[in-house]
């Protein structure tokens, strides 16, 4: 029959209804998905701007970024050097969360190390693990240098260079 080739009125209604319903379900799921995204006020904290020159040589500042402490240490010449982990020639910028079990290490200025109170892990002034259970160095957060400022949470060319090196 010639009519076999054509879409019958019933088929048409079925596809139209099915398609319309699929669009409705899709839109609903998308809206549901979007409700779970971080709120604007949370997203606003995704990046933190910090003036590096504020830090005195030998001083450690702790900046809260995405609910995590970020250590910003302006190193002095007597501290260990590590060009592959140093930002703007003299700064160590690391996420202050022990890579062992997530505790927050303390800076011991006299020994120039971070010491983790939980299991005794130690990191040097570059954030590299030098003693105890930590399996790897403290993480370097994504950052971007904007003149005198460091922007945490944005990926800049300096960060990419560090990650490659």
């Amino acid at each position, binding site marked *: 029959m010639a009519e076999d080739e054509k879409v019958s009125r019933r088929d048409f209604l079925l596809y139209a209804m099915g398609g319309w319903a699929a669009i409705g379900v899709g839109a609903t799921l998308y809206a549901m*998905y979007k409700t*779970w*995204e*971080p*709120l604007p006020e*949370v997203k606003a*904290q*995704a990046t933190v701007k910090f003036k590096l020159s504020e830090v005195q040589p030998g001083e450690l500042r702790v900046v809260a970024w*995405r*609910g*995590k*402490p970020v250590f910003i240490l302006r190193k002095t010449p007597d501290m260990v050097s590590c060009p592959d982990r140093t930002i703007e020639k003299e700064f160590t910028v690391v996420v202050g969360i022990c890579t062992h*079990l*997530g*505790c*927050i290490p303390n800076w011991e200025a006299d020994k120039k190390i971070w010491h983790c109170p*939980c*299991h005794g892990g130690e990191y040097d002034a570059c954030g590299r693990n030098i003693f105890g259970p930590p399996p790897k160095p403290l993480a370097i957060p994504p950052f971007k240098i904007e003149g005198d400022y460091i922007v945490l949470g944005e990926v800049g060319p300096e960060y990419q260079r560090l990650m490659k090196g």
Partner: protein
Amino acid sequence: MKFIDWLDERLAIRQLMKVMLLEYYVPKNINFLWSFGVLIMLVLIILIVSGIFLLMYYKPDANLAFDSVNKTIMMDVEFGWLFRHVHAVGASIMFLVLFIHMGRGIYYGSFKPPRELVWLTGYFLFILMAATAFTGYLLPWGQMSYWAAQTITTLFEKIPVIGPDLVIWIRGNYIVADATLTRFFALHVVFLPLLLIFVTVVHLYAVRIVGSNNEDGIEIPKEEKKKKGIPFWPVFMSKEFFVMSVFLIFFFWLVFYKFDFAMDPINFTPANYLQTPPHIYPEWYFLAFYEVLRGFFFSQNLGLIAFVLSMLLPMFLPWIDKSPIKSGNHRPLFKIAFWIFVLDFIFLTVLGKLPPTGLYGWLGFVGSLVFFAFFIALPIISRIERKELERGGNKQ
């Protein structure tokens, strides 16, 4: 006209009772392990009722949650402590009765045809119950609540490509925060219980169609059901009431005297996102799976894959174990494998609470391998049994 007749005319209540209870026959050759299904229903009801009462004072807000539980409910609300302890102990005991119920199913081959859907819906219920327990554990907003949620949500980070964004999406923040608490609350009190009840109905419906398995795993023909079985109501349930009574004595002994086991001391410190407790561990019922996660201590990715597999593999039992013999009572090789599996599960549970260092690390690895060995052994055992049957020997 009596009220029941009036109802029957409108809802066919007599027919319903017949199908569901009066003419639903349970085999005679079953043991007390078959009473755990009803016990699960009992615990579920206890959890729902105690949960509703906790809901009346609980505040799902990061600033208020901890005090609403530990001050308002525990100190100010009359008998608030009772409902909290009943709810916490109930959650714990739910997994005990679930494990026994599932272990019974595995041993007696209750997952085999024609009961695949009973097993699948049941396993889905187990996963849902795990999700309910996990989301509920965050609500008191103590240190253990917080860091358990933080750790488990971090696991999703390892999923290729979408992982890191997925974690932020699940949490609604870069860390577990107020948004996470409120959505876990919504899942715990509305979405998951609704789904649980719906799937339970399907599970019970499926059992009504295929009937209970029995100790020998030999199906009773339809026409013999009445002769070889007992009606679910009132005969089976009258025995069940005895089991329920004994169970409730045990349950309330736990609630009144041993509630501590369900109340981790670390969780009485409010959640602090800047300080991790030195030793994080899940509740006892997740420890075995947690140990599989840690067991592959030399590779985080491998551990994660093993963890997911350990949670999902049992679901496929009807297709992993295709031996024509159903009941473990008549399967000598399977019996050995099964008890090794049970002991290994207990071993992993014990190990899960110990620090994963040195010897414990290696023991965890071996224990994890034994866990998977069970699922590798099953197809082999099935083949041996099939061959033996074909040779005509050793029937039953």
